[in-house]
């Protein structure tokens, strides 16, 4: 069963993403490369989503059922951004609107028992913040936060959400391997939109419906600004910058993972 989980979570999604990246490698027009990169991220995730969850009912019966639709909308909107180039104001407005609507769709089942205003506001704000910080800075930090979220979700919330988080980490890991020795993943605006939508949605579903532990999740979010610090401390030396980013992000991610794993082991099956 563990082998089957590994195949669903890591092998097939990363293989699908790598296949899409290979197609992008053959493209001569550099304008389309970020879009193919975004497509590889989305396709890799959807392969894992199909194998693990496999429910494409529309309208969805569960919050996680909104993921394919959210990915498609974000991919289309920000692919246009990568091609045509939105102004900064329009991009931020769209990111804000899609963060709020994504949070609202995921929290929709809770609306039956009242308006979860505080949860909606907090979720939208964190989703938007995550997006703004990570947009255009997609390296090891995004990968580490995704991997940390997979561990925290699987051990303190839901195995399925942990697996879906693992799919995102596997796909981003595939990007890092494909682009090695460069440690920057050329996701573009569309790829960041897809990756952030998956990450923020899974974190929100975990907290709203699976009682995922809050402290480790907040620690994961503390890793996100490592990108800013890395750029400042790296003094324009790309490899040093990415090394610092990775090292700074690894600290909160490792602490969050350790807390989550310790809590899991205390309730051993």
């Amino acid at each position: 069963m563990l082998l089957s989980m590994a195949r669903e979570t890591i092998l097939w999604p990363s293989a699908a993403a790598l296949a899409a990246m290979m197609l992008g490698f053959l493209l001569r027009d550099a304008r389309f490369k970020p879009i193919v990169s975004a497509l590889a991220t989305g396709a890799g995730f959807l392969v894992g989503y199909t194998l693990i969850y496999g429910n494409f009912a529309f309208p969805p019966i569960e919050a996680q059922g909104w993921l394919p639709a959210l990915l498609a909308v974000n991919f289309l909107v920000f692919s246009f951004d990568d091609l045509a180039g939105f102004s900064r104001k329009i991009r931020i407005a769209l990111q804000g609107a899609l963060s709020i609507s994504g949070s609202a769709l995921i929290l929709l089942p809770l609306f039956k028992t009242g308006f979860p205003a505080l949860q909606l506001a907090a979720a939208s704000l964190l989703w938007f913040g995550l997006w703004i910080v990570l947009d255009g800075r997609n390296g090891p930090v995004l990968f580490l936060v995704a991997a940390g979220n997979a561990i925290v979700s699987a051990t303190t919330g839901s195995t399925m959400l942990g697996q879906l988080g693992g799919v995102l980490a596997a796909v981003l890991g595939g990007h890092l391997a494909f682009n090695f020795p460069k440690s920057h993943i050329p996701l573009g605006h569309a790829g960041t939109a897809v990756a952030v939508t998956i990450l923020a949605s899974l974190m929100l579903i975990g907290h709203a419906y699976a009682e995922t532990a809050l402290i480790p999740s907040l620690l994961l979010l503390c890793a996100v600004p490592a990108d800013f610090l890395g750029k400042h401390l790296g003094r324009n030396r790309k490899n040093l910058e990415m090394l610092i980013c990775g090292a700074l992000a690894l600290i909160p991610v490792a602490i969050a993972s350790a807390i989550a794993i310790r809590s899991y082991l205390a309730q051993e099956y």
Partner: protein
Amino acid sequence: MNKAIATLAAALALQSGIVLADAYQVQNSSPAGTYKIDPTHSMVQFWVGHMGVSEFPGRFDAVSGSFTVDAAHHEADKVSVKVPIDSLDTNFDKRNKDLLGPDFFNAKQFPTMTFTSTGVKMKNANEGTLTGNLTLHGVTRPVTFSLRHVGAGPDPWGGYRSGYVAKTTIRRSDFGMNYMLNGISDTIEVQLNIEGKRQ
């Protein structure tokens, strides 16, 4: 010594006579009437295959609802059952949490399971089938239970009670619960034990 043995034998004989007189008996009075389900004597139990090696039980402790029985015209009988999903218990907190989360029952999104009958067919006084719509995990599907009437009659507190056992097998994938089908069986045996107090 012989006297003591004789006294003991007499006491045992008297005791066994009392026991025989008080033995548990099924009451066979008419089940006709409208009943409110007694949650303290009703339960939903289920058995699910685990990793291909065992059949593991679980239960829902809070069952409410009502049923109406017309002994002469069973086609008019009605059953309505409501079960809060968070009343689930599998004798281990961590597993309960896993089952109540998005992997399986997703209790926060779908807090109740309901059954509403559409037809009852009795093949004799005590056995038959109960058909109706089961809503679980946000999906409503028709389900047929085998039905057994256990008994009906007065209780010691001046009320009147009747009870049934209904059994069926469902496929969780029919209700959109698709996670980990290779480790936890798709087919689930379900048993509903209900006792109602006549209104």
